[in-house]
């Protein structure tokens, strides 16, 4: 243990951890909002809407997050006059914003597939029973299908949050000082390999805490449907 190094960079690494958390919370929550219309689009009977939603999901899931981040962050620089004209340049100039935007768009595609899968996994008998009770299609979807789909989506959503925590480390490559960014800075100044191991411990702790908390939430929310 190099205590001097810890004194110098420990607090900054914790700040970096907070930046990582901010990125993940923003991306996951805004991504969830965006994922709902995409998931509905995927299930739409309109072929154009369905095709567009499919193309979006396929393109995002088929390309690396790092390449997407480069496309947004460096690509935006090319449209500087246009972005300045609409008054958005101050946002796209900021690496944190570009990362938050890219991660949101990225997780929206993955979450859309999670929600679609969950909705399709609700047994048909549920909507048929609701129909026989005289409920209208909208009410069936809102009151019967969605509450059950949410429970089915919990587990894959927990995995997606963990993947986002890990994926958010690419922000460091476009100059964001998230946990990985601070670690790289500390290493480039101290050449002490320890900092990478500290970062590993912090990431592992974060992932394990989230995994366990998520497990608890899932247990609590599904307590009425557990068999045993």
């Amino acid at each position: 243990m190099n205590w001097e190094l810890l004194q110098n960079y420990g607090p900054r690494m914790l700040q970096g951890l907070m930046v990582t958390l901010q990125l993940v919370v923003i991306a996951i929550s805004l991504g969830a909002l965006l994922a709902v219309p995409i998931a509905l689009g995927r299930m739409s009977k309109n072929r154009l809407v369905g095709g567009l939603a499919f193309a979006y999901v396929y393109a995002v899931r088929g390309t690396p997050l790092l390449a997407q981040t480069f496309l947004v962050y460096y690509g935006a620089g090319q449209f500087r006059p246009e972005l300045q004209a609409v008054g958005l340049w101050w946002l796209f100039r900021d690496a944190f914003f570009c990362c938050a935007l890219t991660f949101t768009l990225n997780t929206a595609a993955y979450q859309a597939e999670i929600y679609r899968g969950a909705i399709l996994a609700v047994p048909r008998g549920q909507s048929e029973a609701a129909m026989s009770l005289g409920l209208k299609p909208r009410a069936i979807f809102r009151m019967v299908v969605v509450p059950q789909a949410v429970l089915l989506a919990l587990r894959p959503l927990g995995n997606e949050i963990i993947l986002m925590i890990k994926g958010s480390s690419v922000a460091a490559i476009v100059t964001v000082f998230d946990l990985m960014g601070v670690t790289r800075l500390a290493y480039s100044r101290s050449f002490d390999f320890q900092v990478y191991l500290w970062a590993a411990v912090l990431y592992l702790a974060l992932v394990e805490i989230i995994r366990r908390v998520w497990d608890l939430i899932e247990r609590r929310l599904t307590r009425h449907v557990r068999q045993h």
Partner: protein
Amino acid sequence: MDLLGLISFGPGGWGNALAAGTWLTIRLALATLPFGLVLGLAIAQAKRSDNRLLRAFGNLYTTVFRGLPELLTIFIVYFGGQIALQKLVNLVVPGQTIEISGFVAGMIALGVVFSAYASEVLLGAFNGISRGQWEAAKALGLRPFPTLRLVILPQLIRLALPGLANLWLILLKDTSLVSVIALDDLLRMTGIAVRVTKEPFFFFGVACLIYLAMSMISSIGITAIERRVERGHRRAA
């Protein structure tokens, strides 16, 4: 602005550079796959073992490498491996400096991550094979290793294929992370092209399309392999 000229293969075009980068990406992914699979199989075996220590090791390995960001694993293997190897070499030949190849470091890091996920997929597949298969092989007088190779693995492949195919697609995308340890993969070559031409949106867009094409071709290949391993296993209609 002649964008198509920029990705042509002639002089002034970046086609050759992008093709070289794509080729390295493909080579890296292909080299990682067998390494990751064998390691994954070993970890799965450790987790199935009767030995408590081995089981604990397998579970720890999976928890650690599924929890760490891939990027961090790459840095740890690249820098840490360098330091460890240097110390080892200096024990034998003092003063000798040694450099670890980015390709090998990338392969090890990606392979370790791949194996952590693959071991879970394989574990699930092992559980999908009934005990009777092992017992029948034993009754025929097969020893453990031939049993694994001749009886279990052919069935295991069918059960594990969907999960492993998914991991392959993830691996293909994760190769982009090695560009940060100065390995001339597709993304890094694209970055170089961008610095020279000042056309980031176009070039990174092209890189995304190349990754997408690789995913699509993989999907076609996976479907073909799936069809092949499903032969002789008729589904009840």
